[in-house]
C-alpha cells in the first residue's frame, strides 16, 4: 500500500491545482480559448480523479467502473487539444474539416469505450491496475496519436510564424506544458498494453499547472495575471490578519485564559479594522515588487516611440498613443489637457472616455500645476493628495471627481503649452504600478517633443495656407491685370494697324500724284513749281519711312517677330538700289564708296528687310562722314556657316559713354543729334531686330571723331 501512496498524493495535488487553474482561466472571460482550456482541465480532473479512485479501489468492479470513467474523458483529449491549437492560431477549411471529423470519430470511440471491444480484463501490476486494451483501443490509439501530432504541428507552425516575441514565448510555454502532458502523461496508456510503469503520469497535471501558472505570472499568458494577483493579495491579507492573532490568542489561552474572550473581541475588531489597510499594503507591495505588468515595457516604449515619430498631426498622435496605452494599462480613460497659466484653467487636447472633462476646468491656483511640473514625473492620486495647501483643494477635488488616478506632466519646451496626461482607473481596479510609472516617465518626454514638433508644424502649415491664399489673391489680381493689359495691347495693335493702313494709303496717293505731276506731261508747270513738288515728294517719303519704322517698333514691342520671307538675291544689286536712294547725300559730300563685295555674291534672306538694314547703315555712314571721306563695304566668311558684312566710315564716331545705349530705341548719340535734327533713333534698333530675326547678330566698334565700323552677320543658307 505504501507504493500506491505517492500516486495518490500526486493525484490529489494535481487535482487541486488543476481545479484552481480552470476556475481562474474561466474567470478571465468566456472566450473560446478559455472555454477549451476549461474543457481540457475538466478532462484532466476526470482523469486524475478517476485514477485516484482506481488506485484506491480494491474490487475489480470498482476498477472497471473508474477505468471506463477515465476513458469517457480522456477520449476527447486529443481532439479538444487540437481545437485549442486552432483557436490559438487560426481556422481554415482543411483544419475545420479535420476538426469536425475528429469530433465525430472520438464520439464514436466514446460509445465503443463502454463495451468490451475497447477494454476488457484487468492487468494488475506493482503500483496499481489497469484494464487491458482490445481491438478498438488500437484504432483509438492511432487516431489519438494522429491528432496529437496535428496539434503539435499547428503549434510549432504558429510559433515559427509569430512575429511578436512575447506571443512567441507564450506559445513556447504551451508547447512545453502540453509536451509534458502528452508525452509523460501518455505513458498512462502503457498499462493497457500490460506494461508495468511507475505512475509518474499522475504528476503531469501538476507539472502542467506549474508551467502554465509560471507563464501566467511572467508572460501574462491569457491575461489572467490580475485575477491571480487579487487572490494572492486576499490570501496574504487574511493570513496576516489571522496568523499573528491566532498565535497571540493561543498564548493568552495558555497563560491568561480568563482574558481570552475580551482579547478575542479586541483582536476580532482590530483585524476587521486593519484588514483593509493590510490588504492595501499588500496590494502595493505586490504591485511594486512581486508582479510585473502585463505588457512588455520595452515593446511598449518601442511602439509608442514609433507612433510618436510617425505623425505630425497632434490629434492622430494622441489617438494612437492613447490606444497603445489603453492596450497596455487597460485604463478606463486617458486624456491630455493643456494648462493655461494665465487663465488658470485647462483646455482639452485629446480625451478618451473622461466625462465632462472640459466642463470640469474651473479656475485653479497654478501653484499646484507648477509643483506637479517641478516633480517632473508621473504622480498618483495619493501623491497629489499630499499637496495639502488649502488653495489646492479645488484642483484635488476635481481630480477626484473625474476619477483620475494618475497625472503625468508633459513638458513642452519653447511653447506656452503645459501638457497634463490624465489616466482613469484601470479596468481591473488595480493601481498604477512602478513599471507603469517608469514607462510613462520615459514616454512623457517623447510626447513633449512630438507635441512640440506637431505644433511647430501646425504653425508652419498655417503660415503656408496664409501664404498660399495671399499668393493666389495676388495671382488672381495679376491675371486680371494681365487680361486688361492683353486687351489694351490688342487695342493698341489694332489701332496701329488701322492708323498705318489709313495713313499709308493717302501717303501713297500723295507719292504717286506728286510723281505724276513732276513728270509734267502737259508741260504746264514751271521749274519753281517742279522744285516745290520735289520737296513735297521727299517730305512725303520721310513720312512714309517714319510710319514704317513706328509700325516695325510696335510690331517688335508687342512680341511679334518679323515675318521673314526668304529668297536668293544678289547683294550688289540691292546695294546699288540703296546707294541710289542716298545719292543726293553722297554726291553733295563727294563721298567715295569702296565696295569690296563681288558682283556675283548672293545671299538667301528676306530681301526687303535686309535692304532696310543696308539702308540704315549706308544712310548713317553717309550722314556722319566728313566731306571727301571714304565708306568701305566689305565682308568676311566664317567657316562657310556665317557671313559678316562691314560698313566702315571715318565719321564723327560715337562717344564712348553713349555706346551702350546705341541700340536702344529712340536713342540718338549727342553728336549725331547736333548734326542732324531729324531722325527718330529707331533705325539701328529695327535693323538689329531684323538681323536677329534672321538668326544673325549686329554690333559695332567706334571711336569718337575717328569713325565707326558697323557689322552684321547672317547665317549662310543654301537655297535648298
Amino acid at each position, binding site marked *: 500500500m505504501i507504493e500506491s501512496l505517492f500516486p495518490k498524493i500526486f493525484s490529489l495535488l494535481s487535482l487541486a491545482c488543476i481545479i484552481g487553474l480552470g476556475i481562474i482561466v474561466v474567470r478571465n472571460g468566456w472566450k473560446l480559448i478559455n472555454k477549451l482550456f476549461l474543457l481540457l482541465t475538466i478532462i484532466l480532473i476526470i482523469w486524475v480523479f478517476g485514477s485516484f479512485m482506481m488506485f484506491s479501489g480494491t474490487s475489480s468492479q470498482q476498477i472497471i467502473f473508474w477505468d471506463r470513467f477515465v476513458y469517457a474523458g480522456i477520449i476527447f483529449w486529443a481532439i479538444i487539444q487540437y481545437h485549442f491549437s486552432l483557436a490559438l492560431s487560426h481556422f481554415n477549411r482543411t483544419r475545420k474539416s479535420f476538426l469536425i471529423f475528429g469530433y465525430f470519430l472520438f464520439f464514436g470511440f466514446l460509445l465503443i469505450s463502454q463495451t468490451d471491444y475497447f477494454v476488457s480484463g484487468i492487468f494488475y501490476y506493482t503500483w496499481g491496475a489497469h484494464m487491458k486494451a482490445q481491438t478498438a483501443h488500437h484504432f483509438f490509439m492511432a487516431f489519438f496519436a494522429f491528432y496529437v501530432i496535428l496539434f503539435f504541428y499547428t503549434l510549432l507552425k504558429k510559433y515559427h510564424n509569430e512575429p511578436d516575441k512575447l506571443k512567441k514565448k507564450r506559445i513556447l510555454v504551451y508547447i512545453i506544458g502540453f509536451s509534458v502532458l502528452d508525452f509523460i502523461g501518455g505513458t498512462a496508456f502503457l498499462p493497457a498494453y500490460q506494461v508495468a510503469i511507475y505512475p509518474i503520469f499522475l504528476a503531469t497535471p501538476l507539472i502542467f499547472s506549474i508551467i502554465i501558472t509560471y507563464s501566467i505570472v511572467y508572460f501574462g499568458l491569457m491575461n489572467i495575471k490580475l485575477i491571480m494577483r487579487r487572490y494572492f493579495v486576499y490570501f496574504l491579507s487574511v493570513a496576516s490578519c489571522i496568523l499573528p492573532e491566532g498565535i497571540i490568542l493561543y498564548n493568552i489561552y495558555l497563560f491568561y485564559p480568563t482574558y481570552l474572550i475580551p482579547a478575542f473581541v479586541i483582536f476580532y475588531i482590530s483585524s476587521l479594522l486593519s484588514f483593509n489597510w493590510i490588504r492595501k499594503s499588500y496590494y502595493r507591495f505586490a504591485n511594486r515588487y512581486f508582479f510585473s505588468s502585463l505588457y512588455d515595457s520595452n515593446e511598449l516604449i518601442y511602439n509608442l516611440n514609433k507612433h510618436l515619430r510617425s505623425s505630425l498631426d497632434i490629434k492622430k498622435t494622441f489617438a494612437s498613443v492613447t490606444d497603445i496605452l489603453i492596450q497596455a494599462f487597460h485604463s478606463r480613460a486617458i486624456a491630455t489637457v493643456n494648462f493655461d497659466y494665465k487663465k488658470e484653467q485647462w483646455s482639452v487636447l485629446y480625451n478618451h472616455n473622461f466625462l465632462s472633462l472640459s466642463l470640469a476646468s474651473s479656475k485653479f491656483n497654478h501653484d499646484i500645476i507648477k509643483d506637479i511640473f517641478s516633480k517632473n514625473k508621473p504622480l498618483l492620486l495619493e501623491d497629489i493628495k499630499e499637496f495639502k495647501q488649502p488653495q489646492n483643494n479645488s484642483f484635488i477635488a476635481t481630480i477626484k471627481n473625474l476619477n483620475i488616478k494618475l497625472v503625468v506632466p508633459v513638458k513642452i519646451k519653447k511653447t506656452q503649452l503645459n501638457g497634463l496626461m490624465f489616466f482613469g482607473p484601470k479596468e481591473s481596479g488595480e493601481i498604477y504600478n512602478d513599471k507603469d510609472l517608469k514607462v510613462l516617465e520615459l514616454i512623457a518626454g517623447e510626447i513633449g517633443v512630438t507635441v512640440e514638433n506637431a505644433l511647430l508644424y501646425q504653425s508652419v502649415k498655417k503660415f503656408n495656407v496664409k501664404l498660399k491664399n495671399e499668393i493666389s489673391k495676388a495671382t488672381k489680381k495679376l491675371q486680371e491685370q494681365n487680361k486688361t493689359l492683353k486687351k489694351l495691347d490688342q487695342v493698341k495693335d489694332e489701332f496701329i494697324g488701322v492708323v498705318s493702313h489709313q495713313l499709308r494709303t493717302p501717303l501713297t*496717293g500723295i507719292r504717286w500724284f506728286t510723281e*505724276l505731276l513732276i513728270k509734267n506731261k502737259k508741260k504746264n508747270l514751271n521749274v519753281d513749281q517742279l522744285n516745290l513738288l520735289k520737296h513735297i515728294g521727299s517730305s512725303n517719303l520721310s513720312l512714309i519711312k517714319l510710319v*514704317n519704322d513706328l509700325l516695325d517698333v510696335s510690331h517688335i514691342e508687342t512680341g511679334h517677330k518679323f515675318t521673314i*520671307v526668304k529668297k536668293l538675291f544678289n547683294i550688289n544689286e540691292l546695294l546699288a538700289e540703296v546707294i541710289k536712294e542716298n545719292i543726293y547725300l553722297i554726291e553733295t559730300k563727294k563721298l567715295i564708296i569702296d565696295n569690296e563685295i563681288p558682283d556675283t555674291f548672293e545671299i538667301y534672306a528676306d530681301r526687303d528687310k535686309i535692304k532696310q538694314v543696308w539702308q540704315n547703315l549706308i544712310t548713317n555712314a553717309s550722314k556722319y562722314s566728313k566731306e571727301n571721306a571714304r565708306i568701305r563695304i566689305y565682308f568676311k566668311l566664317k567657316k562657310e556657316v556665317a557671313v559678316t558684312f562691314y560698313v566702315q566710315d571715318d565719321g564723327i564716331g560715337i562717344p564712348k559713354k553713349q555706346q551702350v545705349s546705341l541700340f536702344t530705341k529712340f536713342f540718338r548719340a549727342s553728336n549725331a543729334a547736333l548734326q542732324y535734327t531729324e531722325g527718330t533713333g529707331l533705325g539701328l534698333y529695327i535693323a538689329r531686330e531684323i538681323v536677329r530675326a534672321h538668326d544673325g547678330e549686329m554690333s559695332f566698334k567706334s571711336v569718337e571723331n575717328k569713325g565707326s565700323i558697323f557689322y552684321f552677320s547672317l547665317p549662310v543658307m543654301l537655297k535648298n
Partner: protein
Amino acid sequence: MNKTILIVEDDVALVEALSISLKEENFEVYEAHNGEEGLIFAEKILPDLILCDINMPKMDGLTMLSKIRKTKWGANLLFIMLTNYSDQEKISRALSNSVFSYLVKSDWDLSQIVTEIKKKLKTD
C-alpha cells in the same frame, strides 16, 4: 495688240494714279473696286495681268486670287499684289499656296511699278 491689265483696288485715287500711268504706256486698263467685281471682270475680260489690293470690302484680294486660281483660265494668270506694310503675315501664308508677286504700295513709285509690270509681261 495691247496688253490688258485689271486693277482691283478700293481706293479711287490710287486706281486713278495707276490707271493714268499705265494708259500712258499704252496698256488697256480696266478698273474694279472690290474682290467681287474683280472676279466678275476678270472672267469677262481675261486680262493679261491683275494688279490687286489686299484689303478691300466684300471680298479681299487673297480670296479673289484663290478663286481665280481654281478656274481653268486663271490658273496661270499673272498677278501682282499691292500690299500694305502690315499685310506681311497674310502674304507669307498665301505665298505657299499660290504663285504671285507682291509689292508694298507706299515703297514704290509709279514708274517702278510700271517697269515691274513690263518685266513680268515680257518674261511671260
